[in-house]
């Protein structure tokens, strides 16, 4: 099912929100790490895996989901969290390690959690697979009708956990979807160098699962296939693998110059926020000037959230020592 125009505009706005947040994060990240780059320095320390280029994958899938559905996101979680509607301020505060972040600064960028949004994430590759399947199982046991969706990258598919959980989801016929964002790279290793076959969705045959593939990085196409995926999963037929071709525009993590990516490939990179804007304008869904004002709006909103986060207080150091147990 294709999204209606209202949804499309909302998807576009959401992509931009994620993009501008990532742009601001990038700017702030580099700012106070000069002249000698020190990953531990500045307002935003540690690794940051930005979602630049993959925003289409998030909106096209998450917008199909309901309140009852569960999500586990990967080490690259910003776009997924934004698409799920998690408060930008709280995300930014968490990424800056502030007391009013999602996890009060305990988690950080790879660990975004929101109970309200049934949203978790993990920095260990493919470690969201089990939990999302377990959330699907719990939903079924409790008769709540939700499904579990795990997001990961194409390289994560070669982790043992992926196979174990896909098989279990097949055996138990869980309402479970694995969304694979295929940006062709796992850090510096290309898909061809890490994966024995071209399409991970073809691995569905190993698990009695439905395998779907979208090669356009277009939110509408993704929304369409995700609708098929959710219908299948909700019907009780079993799990779905949905692989989405996408692009990793800013390298594996901020600071990665991607020297290892061939120049031709870099030239072929597409920016889904630009492509989608053009599409919406060309199809008359929005005008150029509406697009401009959306961009301006979003920038304002994100900038405000950034200001809020910057001004927010750091947590008390002593908080480190509590919270391991209930």
């Amino acid at each position, binding site marked *: 099912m294709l999204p209606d125009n209202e949804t499309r505009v909302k998807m576009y706005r959401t992509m931009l929100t994620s993009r501008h947040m990532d742009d601001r994060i990038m700017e702030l990240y580099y700012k106070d790490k000069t002249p000698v780059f020190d990953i531990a320095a500045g307002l935003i320390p540690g690794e940051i895996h930005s979602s630049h280029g993959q925003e289409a994958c998030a909106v096209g899938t998450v917008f199909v989901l309901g309140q009852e559905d569960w999500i586990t996101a990967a080490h690259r979680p910003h776009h997924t969290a934004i698409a799920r509607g998690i408060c930008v301020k709280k995300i930014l505060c968490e990424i800056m390690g502030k007391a009013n972040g999602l996890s009060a600064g305990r988690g950080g960028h790879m660990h975004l959690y929101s109970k309200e949004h049934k949203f978790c994430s993990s920095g260990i590759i493919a470690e969201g697979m*089990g*939990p999302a*399947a*377990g959330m699907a199982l719990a939903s079924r*046991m409790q008769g709540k009708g939700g499904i579990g969706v795990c997001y990961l990258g194409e390289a994560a598919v070669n982790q043992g*956990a992926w196979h*174990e959980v896909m*098989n*279990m989801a097949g055996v138990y016929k869980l309402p479970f979807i694995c969304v694979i964002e295929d940006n062709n790279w796992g850090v510096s290793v290309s898909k061809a160098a890490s994966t024995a076959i071209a399409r991970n969705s073809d691995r569905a045959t190993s698990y009695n699962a439905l395998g779907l593939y979208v090669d356009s990085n277009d939110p509408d196409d993704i929304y369409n296939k995700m609708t098929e995926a959710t219908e299948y999963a909700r019907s009780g037929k079993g799990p779905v693998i949905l692989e989405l071709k996408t692009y990793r525009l800013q390298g594996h993590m901020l600071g990665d110059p991607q020297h290892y990516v061939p120049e031709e490939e870099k030239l072929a990179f597409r920016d889904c926020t630009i492509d989608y804007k053009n599409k919406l304008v060309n199809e008359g869904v929005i005008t150029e000037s509406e697009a401009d004002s959306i961009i301006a709006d979003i920038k304002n909103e994100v900038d405000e959230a950034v200001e809020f986060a910057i001004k927010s207080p750091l947590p008390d150091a002593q908080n480190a020592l509590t919270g391991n147990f*209930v």
Partner: protein
Amino acid sequence: MNMSNNRVLTMARAGREAVKWEMENDKNVFMLGEDVYKFGGVFGTADGLGEIFGADRILDTPISETGFIGLATGAAIAGMRPIVELAFADFIGVCYSAIVNLAAKHHYLSNGEFKVPMVLMLGSGGGYNNGGQHSQALHACLAHMPGMKVIAPSNAYDAKGFMHAAIRSDDFVVYMGQKRTSGVGFFGAPIPDSMSEIPDEPYTIEFGVARTVKEGTDVTVVAISWAVHQAMDAAKELEKEGISVEVIDPRTLVPLDRESIINSVRKTGRLVVADEDYQSYGFTSEVIASVIESEPNVFKSAPIRVANPDTTIPYSRPMEQQVLPTSARIKQAILDVMK
């Protein structure tokens, strides 16, 4: 333990009774793992529960430990209270990340947004010639890591009480039972002191409270799990030789009841620590360090460890016996510490 009453149970039966009660009284409790449904768990932890609760609540899994511990974690986050049966502690190797990076860290990293009310049952230890990959104790590999309670009961009364407490806890709890204390059929006659008279009604035991198994004045022996019974055998023998041994069973490694241990050593001034796990970087060093860091002058003689001497566990009987914390080794250590 007084066995005069009607219901004297083995550890496996006692633990299973708690599981059954909780499953009857809380529909969110369910069990999953290899061979639980029809087989009742390799070590009897789910004996007969499959028939009572059906395949949907006693869930057989593929041999996919990372997968099903991850799955249970997700189910716990989403409001269920899973009990995961992982037959052999040795198998934590194939699912260590799911245990230590996922289940154990979710609560902290989410700042309490998500609880993980899950129990992970492990059968630990050797002494029955099952070889180096099926005989390990490994509790230190878990107790070292933050975010989970680690309990290792040595008798049926504790097994039932801790199981109720573990299932009801909103924390992630690892429940380790030494296989040969379980009392399961194929391990021969059960260790008498591992069996207990078990009240019908449910009860809980607080984590982090050691049990003084036997009072004494000359030497403190701190022992955990199967080693408790070995320590008691040694203590009883030495009693005849006029040495008064106090045996302390901490019962839980996390939290560890350091206070009770220290109090005992304050009284005796001598300490032997017995443990089936590998010696270095383990339970025995933690107990000793915990005493000395609060009582630097308490020792009348050097404390002694009786643990696996940092060796892979051999299969052959005489060799395996050599590396276990047997009563003979504990007895010798007590004699040495008395010198």
